[in-house]
């Protein structure tokens, strides 16, 4: 840091500025003088929607160095007009929470512990189990010979917090596989 001239000393500024009580500009530090909101330092601002309830409040996501640095209400939204509730206001913490799990965990039968797994391995294992269960629990017809072509061995719960596109792929894949027990919060 460059050595500051004595003219920058607060006491000198106090006298020269007339702010003898030292309450105003004379006492501001270089840090204070350079202050700027972190939103202004963002590399980009992305429009989003709050993930909590179904009001659908607009959010602006501020990104710097590929990290979310701030999420706040989008004043352009005719639904929310820039406002957010406590949950919406906490959504930056939802993204950056220290407690968030970012690795795949696997618990083997009878085990008391989690172990980590490679993502691709995990998906492969799930696919194997899916196919195996489907074969084992297949129901082609009912007792009256009417077509069922389904499995009652695979079920799913969830969707109300997911995107339409995600629900679409889930419903499409499961239905094609013959899994019918697909449910979400709408019935809970």
């Amino acid at each position: 840091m460059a050595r500051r001239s004595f003219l920058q000393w607060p006491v000198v500024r106090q006298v020269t500025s007339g702010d003898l009580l030292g309450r105003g500009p004379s006492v501001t530090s270089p840090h204070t003088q350079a202050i700027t909101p972190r939103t202004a330092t963002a590399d980009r601002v992305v429009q989003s929607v709050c993930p909590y309830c179904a009001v659908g409040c607009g959010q602006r996501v501020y990104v710097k160095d590929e990290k979310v640095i701030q999420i706040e209400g989008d004043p352009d939204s005719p639904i929310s007009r820039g406002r957010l509730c406590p949950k919406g206001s906490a959504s930056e913490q939802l993204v950056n929470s220290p407690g968030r799990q970012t690795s795949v965990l696997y618990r083997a039968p009878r085990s008391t512990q989690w172990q980590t797994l490679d993502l691709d391995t995990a998906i492969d294992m799930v696919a194997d189990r899916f196919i195996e269960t489907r074969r084992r629990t297949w129901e082609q017809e009912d007792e009256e010979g009417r077509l069922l072509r389904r499995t009652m061995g695979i079920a799913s719960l969830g969707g109300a917090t997911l995107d339409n596109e995600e629900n679409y792929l889930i419903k499409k894949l499961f239905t094609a596989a013959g899994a019918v027990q697909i449910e979400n919060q709408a019935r809970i």
Partner: protein
Amino acid sequence: MGQLSGPTDPAVDAHWEQHESRKGFFTDTSICIGCKACEVACKEWNHNPGDGNLELLGSSYDNTGALGASTWRHVAFVEQGQERIKEARETGRALVSLGMPKFGPPSQPDLASADTTPPDTADFRWLMSSDVCKHCTHAGCLDVCPTGALFRTEFGTVVVQDDVCNGCGTCVAGCPFGVIERRSDGTAMVASERKEQHTDHPDIPNVGVAQKCTLCYDRLVDDETPACAKACPTTSIKFGDHDTMVETARERVAELHAQGLTEARLYGANELDGVGGTGSVFLLLDEPEVYGLPPDPRVPTADLPQMYRRAGMAVAGMVAAAAFAFLGGKA
């Protein structure tokens, strides 16, 4: 020199040659829904640590308790029965008949507001109110700060400079509202198990330093609304030019009185009070004490000149007495 009491423009008083119009909040508690968005938005923007002990506080839905080093917005919850509501209506009416707020004509009624029958006194009510630093016209914290860490901004607000504060704590005693506080350490809010998993838990910033609401100084310099006011779902927290805020507050109190809700009254809008009026103005529905606010806040330094005079006289008297005793003793 600047003023220590009475009406003044604080930014001018602090010798800002070029300053903005004074900024402040108007918190209208009559439309507060107690959602605490202000508390969260404030903590999130300012990266203040969680500071609750994760137990129910025993105060209705309030588990925050009070303003402090890490809580710069605090929503109070007060449950009241009919007797108390009647009293509040009476005391509010009395305040107004004393001529405190000046009423303008209420805004043009819409067809829908044709029904103006004063409502019956409810059996019960649940008051909610978001408290914040008052950004006093005469700020005790600022006046007693020995290091220049606290300063008056060009917006007329009072802000701590974290990089200057040495944590002496003088300001804590200087605030008549009990707002400013030194940050000890936040409660690190992780479950026992998770402490091991997440050793990289972020450090708590500004430990040992005095902390309070900055009225989002870092947002104001970029013409952004403070985080709490921006989030507030019902506009219970309004932000703007202080003059406008006071005017809006006066209009609102008049409107409520016209509806028979005479319990409404303003807090902090009187520039002749003990802190020269506050930058954060409130519309309350009962006595300030009910919300945990001092009824007659007074900045300790307001009396400083007088105290110096008295102290001077006392010193002179003491000297005289000592001299007399000494001389008398001799005699």
